[in-house]
Structure formats: structure tokens, C-alpha cells
């Protein structure tokens, strides 16, 4: 048994034993659970992949004379921003598009530029053109503003992920006879390929399946700097079916993350163009798991052949919102490059970068080893498997007199 305070004391002295979620497997095989739980202080986990529910909010400062952006219309490099706040706060979502983008009118659309790319450029220090039209008031007399903005001049710039770090996710296939273009990538007909999107063994929430150490307030690596878990993510769904070892067999927990955009690096924040679908943002995240006891250790020691993902047909079941699956495959199979579905060998593709996730897990490991990153104790837990908390579909209701 260890406490976070004890682990932090060891980190402070530069004595902490820190390994990645991949490295722990060999250690536990060699030394056994009891010794490993005493020896290892922290296990680092990570993920890097597209997450459309990412965005930034920022404050541009007040021009002279003043202008009230709230209630007006604002674009940044022609991409729409959300100005529905006070005079100079804006929100920009990763999937926002320029008004003139043809979307999927010329199918499949290319989606070459949007919110995700804009966030990457802002972080890279590029000047962006802000254009605003609004109404005037006695205290905010201006109706129009066009100016360059730069991240270094913004008052605050904050990355806010409404949802990230999905604990497990679907494997997407296409059982139809034509190519389809989805947020899980280009899917070839007749089960031509199978795309998945988690970093498997490194996936943060798969290493802490019941959220016993990760909670609100947990300090994390977020796109190159320290960020925090702000809340549970949208669509958090902890009560799905689980394996004996507690690993969810379906998409389950999610996290909402927050951090200072000004300190982030475009190495870990990349704009993404998903052919025929839209734009998004890939975000690099790393989460430390304190090995407080043997139970916590047992969770980080689950192997990839004990983690399963549901295979979902994105030509019919997914778009129609049906809960049908074509079966389960293990992460070990997915990562081998080939899986078997209905007796057919199907090559797999991954949307997350396991290589980048490994880099993040190692960076976080080194930060902790060098005493630069202390662990935080969650201030409140996330709803877990016994909470009854569920992700519900929309109940459509007919609007009267419409």
C-alpha cells in the first residue's frame, strides 16, 4: 500500500520508479505482482488520435472603441467561431468549417481546412484573420472588426476537450458493396478493411477501468504541457458490459480535458481532414496511474489479448443507430494487422498513432522521474460501473403546431 503523498515524496527526491503501461507487463512477469506493486510507483498511459469534440476558448482583448462580439458573427480565417458569450470571448470547435467549404456537395468532400487546422496554426504562432460583425450598444459602439490575431497577444487561450480518451471503441467495417467515407476513415466494400482507434495497452482508461485513480482534477500531459481532467467526458457510459477483469467490451468511459493552449505544441495538436466526413483535431494525452496497491497494479497488467472491441458495420448498423455487432476482436489481433470476420481475413488500420502514444508515455515517464511532474489526487470521482450512469440516445418528440 502506498499513498499519492508518498509517491510524490519519492518523485521529489528523484527516486520514483516509473514505467509505461507497455513496460509493466514484463516487469510483473519477472517479479510477480506483490513485488512489482511495492517496486513500481507510477505507470504512464497515453493516446494520440482524432477527437472531434475538441475546441478552444480564448479572449482577444478589447479594441478601442469597444465591440461586443457576443450575439454577433465571428470568423477566424473564414472558419466560424462561436461568440455567444460576453464582448470578447470566443469558442472554436475542431469540426467548424468555412462557410464557403462545399462540404459533401462534391462527394466525397476533401475538407481541407477547418477548426482543427486553425487550432494547429494558432499554436504554431501564425497570424490569423479575425472578422466580426455585430450590433452596437451604448457601451460597445462598434459594429465591425477585422484584424490579425496571434496567440501571444490573446489574454487566455485554453484547449477544452468535451470528450477524449474513449475507453475502448468500435472497430469499423463496411459490409456493403460500395466504398463509404466515415469518421473512422475510408472503408472499402465487402469488409475490405477494418479500422480501429485506440492505443490498446496504452489507452488511459483501459488501464484504470473503474476510474479508481483517474478522476476530476487529475493532472495529465495535454499536448505538450500539463493539463487536467475537468469532468467526465460527454457520452460517458461506464455501465456497459465488461470482461471478468473489468475491461469494458464496448465504448465506455470518456474524459473532459482542459489545459493552457499557449504552452502546447503543434507536435501534439494536429488538424485532420477526414475524406468525405469533415475536419477534426488529433490531441496527444498522457495520464499517470499511481500504483497504490496490488489491485491497481492488476488493472494495468491486463494484456491486449484480454481487451476486446466490438466490430460494427458502418454501412448500416452505425448510421441507423442499431445496436448490432459483427462480433468481438482482441487488441492483440487488431494490432497484428489482420482480423477474422465471418471467416474472412480483413486487414486492419489504426486511426490513433501508437508510435506517438508511446512517445507521450515516455515523455511523461521522464517528467515524473526527473521530479518535474507531481501526481494529483482527484478532487471527485467519475461515475463508475456501479453508478447507473448511462449514455442515452435522443428521444425525438414531435413538435406541436410545426
Amino acid at each position, binding site marked *: 500500500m502506498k499513498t499519492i503523498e508518498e509517491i510524490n515524496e519519492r518523485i521529489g527526491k528523484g527516486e520514483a520508479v516509473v514505467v509505461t503501461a507497455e513496460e509493466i507487463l514484463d516487469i510483473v512477469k519477472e517479479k510477480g505482482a506483490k513485488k512489482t506493486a511495492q517496486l513500481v510507483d507510477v505507470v504512464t498511459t497515453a493516446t494520440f488520435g482524432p477527437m472531434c469534440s475538441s475546441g478552444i476558448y480564448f479572449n482577444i482583448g478589447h479594441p478601442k472603441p469597444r465591440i461586443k462580439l457576443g450575439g454577433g458573427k465571428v470568423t477566424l480565417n473564414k472558419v466560424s467561431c462561436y461568440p455567444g458569450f460576453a464582448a470578447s470571448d470566443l469558442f472554436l470547435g475542431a469540426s467548424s468549417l468555412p462557410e464557403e467549404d462545399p462540404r459533401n456537395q462534391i462527394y*466525397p468532400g476533401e475538407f481541407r481546412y477547418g477548426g482543427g487546422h486553425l487550432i494547429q496554426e494558432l499554436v504554431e504562432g501564425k497570424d490569423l484573420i479575425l472578422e466580426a460583425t455585430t450590433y452596437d450598444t451604448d457601451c460597445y459602439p462598434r459594429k465591425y472588426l477585422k484584424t490579425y490575431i496571434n496567440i501571444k497577444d490573446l489574454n487566455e487561450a485554453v484547449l477544452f476537450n468535451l470528450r477524449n480518451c474513449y475507453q475502448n471503441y468500435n472497430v469499423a467495417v463496411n459490409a456493403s458493396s460500395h466504398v463509404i467515407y466515415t469518421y473512422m476513415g475510408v472503408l*472499402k466494400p465487402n469488409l475490405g478493411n477494418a479500422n480501429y482507434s485506440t492505443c490498446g495497452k496504452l489507452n488511459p482508461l483501459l488501464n484504470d477501468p473503474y476510474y479508481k485513480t483517474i478522476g476530476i482534477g487529475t493532472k495529465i500531459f495535454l499536448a505538450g504541457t500539463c493539463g487536467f481532467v475537468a469532468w467526465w467526458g460527454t457520452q460517458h457510459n461506464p455501465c456497459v458490459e465488461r470482461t471478468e477483469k473489468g475491461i469494458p467490451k464496448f465504448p465506455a468511459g470518456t474524459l473532459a480535458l482542459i489545459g493552457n493552449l499557449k504552452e502546447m505544441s503543434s507536435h501534439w495538436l494536429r488538424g485532420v481532414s477526414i*475524406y468525405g466526413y469533415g475536419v477534426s483535431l*488529433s490531441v496527444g494525452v498522457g495520464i499517470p496511474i499511481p500504483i497504490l496497491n496490488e489491485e491497481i497494479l492488476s488493472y494495468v497488467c491486463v494484456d491486449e489479448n484480454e481487451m476486446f472491441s466490438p466490430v460494427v458495420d458502418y454501412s448500416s448498423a452505425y448510421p441507423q443507430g442499431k445496436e448490432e455487432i459483427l462480433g468481438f476482436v482482441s487488441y492483440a489481433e487488431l494490432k497484428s494487422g489482420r482480423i477474422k470476420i465471418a471467416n474472412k481475413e480483413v*486487414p486492419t*488500420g489504426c*486511426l490513433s*498513432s501508437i508510435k*506517438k502514444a508511446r512517445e507521450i508515455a515516455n515523455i511523461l515517464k521522464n517528467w515524473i522521474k526527473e521530479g518535474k511532474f507531481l501526481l494529483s489526487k482527484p478532487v471527485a470521482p467519475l461515475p463508475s460501473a456501479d453508478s447507473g450512469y448511462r449514455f442515452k440516445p435522443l428521444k425525438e418528440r414531435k413538435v406541436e403546431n410545426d
Partner: protein
Amino acid sequence: MTKRRVVLHFPKELVDKPIVYRLVKDFGLEFNILKAEVNPKEEGVLVLEIRGNEEEFLKGMEFLEDTGVKVQPLSQDVSMDKDKCVDCGVCIPLCPTQALVRDEASFKVEFIKERCIACGICVSGCPYKAMSIKF
């Protein structure tokens, strides 16, 4: 000796005619089929790697064009921008010739240019715009 890669477009009316064998018979050229999309009554596409005498190669291509086949050099101008690539590997199952592969240990994605037939599917399939094509 010359070794070239070409893309041959067969109009509908030529798809069921024996043409390509003449490259061997009349011009002494060897070829390897890299990709073929041939359907009855539809336009056909054949990507060949052709080896042989330079002069005979040119004559052979002239023969093909005379019969109505459109010949396009497959300049190997698909390239990967390593700064943009994040090594996710979503391109790997899309590539019809295994020109995109992943190192099993490091999970690094590699582009093997020699295997590429410039079909371009990776260019649209890459979310990070790391693959580009120039003819």
C-alpha cells in the same frame, strides 16, 4: 535495358481484345502486371512495369496508342511528408500493393516507393495530408 512503369487506359471497345501480349511477341518486352481493373463493357486500367530495349519500348507504346489505348507514364511521384505523418497507419489497408507498411516493433509507418503504383488512394485516405501525388 530500360524499366518503366506505365498506366494503360483501355476504352470500352478494346477491353475484350487481345492487345498487351503483342508487347512480348512483337517488341520483345517483358512486363509485370502491378494492377488491373478490367470489366467487360467498361473502361479498363492496367498498370504495368515493362522491361526491355529502350527503342522497342517506345515502339511498343506507339503501337498501343495506335490501337486506341491511352498510355500514361507512371511517374513515381507519390511521396510521404514525414513531418506531417503521425504513423497512425490508417493508410496501410487501403494500399493495394503493400507500399505502405508498419514496422512491427516501432509502429513506424514506412513508404516503399518501389511498390507504389500511384493509385492515389492514400492521398485521399490520409487525414494528415502526409501523402501527395504529382503526375
